[in-house]
C-alpha cells in the first residue's frame, strides 16, 4: 500500500460512519475473516465471524481470543474460498495487510477492510498501532463501545501485570523461537508484540539489530553472547521445541553461551505472534508465566 492510498483509506474510513448514517444503512454484521489478525480483531470486538480462513491453523497457532465452535471454514489463508464466503452471506471481509495479494479476488465477493498491523515495514509501536486499527474497524462496523471496553481490558491487564512483576529483576531478555539445527535462531524484537509489551511492562527486549515487518530476525547463535547477562525465553511449542533443544544440546556454541551455561533458558507458553491487539494480553500472560519460572532474582 502506498502512503497516499493509505491516507485515502484512512480518510475514507473516518467519513464512512457518517456516510452510512446519512444513507441509513445498517452496519455490516455478517463479517468474514481471512487471516489470524483479522479473526482475532473481530473476536475481540465481540463479533463472531461468519466464515474464518483456516480455523484449524488459528487454534494450532494458539490464536487469541479462542475461536468459538462452529465457525464456517473458508479454506486456507493462501486462497480463501470465495464461494464459501459468498454462500454465508458475507457483507464485509476483514484482512490484515499481509493478505493484500488476495484483495482483488475477495473484492469480487464483498467489500474488503484492510487492517495495517504488519504492513509496509512494520510498526514498532505494536500496541498503539493494533489499537488504532481495531478502533478503525470498530467505527466501520459500529462497535466503538466494544473497542473501548477491550482497550480498557488491555490497559487493566498491563497495569495489573506490572504491579505483580514489581519485585522482579529487570535483566534484558531475548524472546526466541528455536530452529532445527541450522545454526540460527529466530529472535523477536522491534515491530513484534513482544518488544512493545515488554517495554510497557518495564522489561527490555534487547535485540539491537534490525527486524522484519513481523518483528523477527534470524541471528547466528553466537550473536546471543553479545549481551551475556540476558536471559533466553523460548516459545514452547511442545514436541517441536523439545526436538530443537535436543539438537542444540549437541552444539558446542549453544552449550557455551553464557546464559546456557548458567541455565538461564526458560520455556514460555506459546502466543500467536501474528495476531492483533488481543495478542498483547496473551503475550503479557505468557511473559509473566516465564518470568515466574525464572524467579524474581
Amino acid at each position, binding site marked *: 500500500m502506498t502512503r497516499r492510498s493509505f491516507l485515502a483509506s484512512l480518510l475514507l474510513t473516518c467519513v464512512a460512519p457518517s456516510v452510512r448514517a446519512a444513507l441509513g444503512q445498517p452496519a455490516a454484521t455478517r463479517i468474514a475473516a481471512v487471516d489470524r489478525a483479522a479473526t482475532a480483531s473481530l473476536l475481540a470486538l465481540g463479533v463472531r465471524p461468519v466464515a474464518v480462513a483456516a480455523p484449524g491453523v488459528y487454534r494450532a497457532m494458539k490464536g487469541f481470543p479462542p475461536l468459538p465452535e462452529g465457525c464456517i471454514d473458508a479454506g486456507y489463508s493462501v486462497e480463501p474460498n470465495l464461494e464459501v464466503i459468498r454462500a454465508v452471506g458475507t457483507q464485509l471481509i476483514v484482512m490484515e495487510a499481509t493478505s493484500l495479494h488476495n484483495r482483488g*479476488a475477495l473484492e469480487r*465477493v464483498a467489500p474488503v477492510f484492510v487492517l495495517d498491523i504488519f504492513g509496509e515495514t512494520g510498526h514498532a509501536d505494536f500496541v498503539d498501532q493494533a489499537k488504532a486499527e481495531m478502533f478503525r474497524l470498530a467505527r466501520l462496523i459500529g462497535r466503538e463501545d466494544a473497542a473501548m471496553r477491550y482497550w480498557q481490558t488491555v490497559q487493566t491487564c498491563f497495569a495489573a501485570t506490572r504491579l505483580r512483576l514489581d519485585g522482579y529483576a529487570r535483566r534484558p531478555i531475548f524472546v526466541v523461537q528455536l*530452529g532445527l539445527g541450522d545454526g540460527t535462531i529466530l529472535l523477536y524484537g522491534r515491530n513484534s508484540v513482544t518488544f512493545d509489551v515488554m517495554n510497557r511492562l518495564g522489561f527490555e527486549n534487547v535485540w539491537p539489530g534490525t527486524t522484519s515487518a513481523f518483528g523477527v530476525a534470524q541471528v547466528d547463535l553466537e550473536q546471543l553472547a553479545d549481551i551475556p547477562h540476558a536471559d533466553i525465553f523460548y516459545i514452547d511449542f511442545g*514436541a517441536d521445541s523439545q526436538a530443537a533443544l535436543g539438537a542444540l544440546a549437541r552444539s558446542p*556454541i549453544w552449550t557455551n553461551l553464557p546464559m546456557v551455561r548458567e541455565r538461564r533458558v526458560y520455556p514460555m507458553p506459546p502466543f500467536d505472534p501474528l495476531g492483533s491487539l488481543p495478542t498483547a494480553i496473551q503475550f503479557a500472560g505468557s511473559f509473566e508465566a516465564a518470568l515466574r519460572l525464572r524467579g524474581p532474582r
Partner: protein
Amino acid sequence: MTASTAGISRTARWTMHPGYLAGALAVLAMAISGWCLSRYVPVPHWSELFVGSRTADLRLLVARYSFLPRCVVGMLAGAALGLAGTVLQHVLRNPLAEPTTLGVSAGALLSLTLASLWWPGLLDVGREGVALAGAATALLLVTAISWHRGFSSIGIILSGLLVTLTAGAITSVLTLFFGERLTPVFIWQTGNLYQDGWGSAAHLSIGLGGGALLAALIAGPLAVLDLGDEGARSVGQRPAVIRVAAMLLSSALTAVVVAEVGVVGFIGLVAPWLARLAGARTLRQRLVWGPLTGASLLWLADGCVQWLGQAGTALPTGAVTALCGTPLLIWMLSKLKEGMPAQAQGTPVAPARRARAPGAWTFAGGVALLVCCVVLSASFNRELAGWSAGSWDHVRMLLPLRAPRIAAALAAGAMLSIAGVIMQRITGNPMASPEVLGISSGALLAMVALIVFLPAATQGTQAAAATAGALVVLSIMFSLSRRASYSPDRLILTGVAMTTVLGSVVSLMIASGDPRALVLQAWMSGSTYPVGPAAAVVASGAAVVALVAMPFVARPLEIMSLGDASASSVGVDLRRYRSIVLLLCAMTTGAATLIVGPVSFVGLLGPHLARMFGFRRVRAEALGASIMGALLMSLADWLGRNVLYPNQMPAGLMVMFIGGPYFLVLMWRQKS
C-alpha cells in the same frame, strides 16, 4: 578418448596441467578464508585454534567448531559433488547431467518436509537418515523405470525429471498449506553450509572416502563405456551393470551431501567441466581433478558468501552457487560443439496406437467431452451443504466466481498445448514443452525481476515482461536445437537447469523472509484463483488468437520439421516464418504463465494425447492438443476446487499429480 565423451571444443592451444586451476582456486579460497578467520581470531592467536582443549572464549569456539568445520565441509561436499558429476556425465554421455538429475535431491527434500510436518522427532534423531531414505526412494523409482528402457541415458534423464517434478509438486503443496512450520526446511533446501561441530565433516568424509574407493574400483569398466554399448559388450562388459553401479555411486554421494548441507546447485555440473577445460583428458584424470576442482570451487564460493555476508543475514551458499552458475551454464552451452551419438531418435513416450487418421467424429467427440467437462465444472461442485448439482438459477449466481477460473483454465491449457506442439515441431524433440525446456521459467523469472524492482508494475507490463522472458529463453533453446549435434536429452537438461535456477531464486526469497515469496510460491504452483473477469477475457482472447493463427503457420511448421535443407529445396523462406512461429510460441507461453504459473505438464501432455488419438498433421495436432490441454486443465481446476474443499488446490499442481504418474506409468510399460 573418442569424440563421444568430449562435449567441449578443445580450443586450448597449450597443454596445461589440470592441477593449476584447482590449485589457483584453492589458494584464492584459502586467502579469503584466512581473512574471514581473522575476524574471529586474530592471526597471532591462530595456534590456540588447535591446542588448549577447554575454553569458554566464544569467538575461539565459533572459529573452532563453526568456521573451520564449515571450510572442511565445503571442500568435502564440493569434492563429493564433483565426483558424482564426473561419473554421471560420463555414464550418461551428457556434459549437462547433474547429480540432481536423478531426482535424488527432490526425493530427499520431500521426505524431509514430510518428516518435519508429522514426525519432528525423527529430524532430531537423524536428519541425514530421513533425507537418505527419500533420496533412495527417488533413485529406486528412477532405476525401476529406466530398467525397462535398458538404462539408456534418455530414459534415465526423463524418469529423473518426472520424479523431480512430481516430488517437487507434492513439496509445493505442503509448503503452500503448512508454510509457517517449514522454515527450517527452506533453509536446509537452499544449501546452508553452517556447522556447529565436526559431525557433518566426519559423515561427509566417510561418505566421500567410500565413494572414492568405489570410483577407483569401477574406473576401468567405466572407461570401457567410451567404446559405446556394442563395443563394451564386445570386450565382455555389461553396460547396464556399469551404469547401475555408477548411478548408485553418484546418487549415494549426492544424497550424503544433500542430507548434510542441503541442495548445492551447479558444483556437480561445473566442476567436471572446469577440470576438463583445465586439461584433464582421460577418465582417470577427470576422476581425480573433477572432485578436487569441485572442492576448491565450493570452498571458494562459501568463502565469498561469508566474506560478503553480514552476520545473521548470510545468504545460503547453495542458492548462491546456483545463481552464479547461470552465466557459466550459458557460456558452457556456447562451447558445446562436438556431438555425441544421438541415442534417442523418435518419440520416447508416444505410443502410436492408431494408424488410421482421425476423422471429424474424433474432433466432435473431443469437443463434446470438453463441453461436458465445462458444464460439470460449472454446475457440479462441493458446497457448504455437500455435493450439489445446482439448478440453473443457483449456478448463475455462482457463475461470476466460477466462470473466470474455468475460462482461464481452458485458455491456459489450450495455449500451453499449442506452444508444446510448436516447440516439438521446431526442435524435433517429442519431449519439448514450455515447462520442460524452461520457457515458462524464463517468463516467470522476468516477472520475478519485475516484482522485485518495479513492484507497482501494471498487468500489461507484467504480460510484456513474461512474454519477453519467454522469448529470450525460447531463442536460446531454439538456436541450440538447430545444431545438428544437440541431442534431445541435452536440450531437456538445459531446460531443467533453467528451472533449477528459478527454484533457487524463490528459495532465496523465502529464506530471506521476503513476504512476497509466499505469493510467488502460490502463483508458481499454477493457480486460477486470482483470475478475475478481465484477466479471463484477455486469456480467452489470446487463446483464440493463437488458435486462429495456427492454420497459417501449420504448413511452414511441417516443412521446418523436415530440416532446413528440405525447406529451402521446396522454396520456402523459413526465416520469415520462423520469427512469427517463435513469437506465437512466446506469446502463448507468456500469457499462460501469467495466468496459471509456470509448472504444469499440459504443454507436454496435450500434444502427446493428441498424437495418441492419431492427430499427426500439424493443424490437426494443434487443434487436438488444444482440446486435450483445455480438457485437462479444466478437469484439474475442478478437482483442485473440490478435492480438499473448502481448501483450494492450485490447478497446476493437480495437473502434475495427474501428469507425473501418468508419464511414469507410460514409461514403465514401454520397453525400448
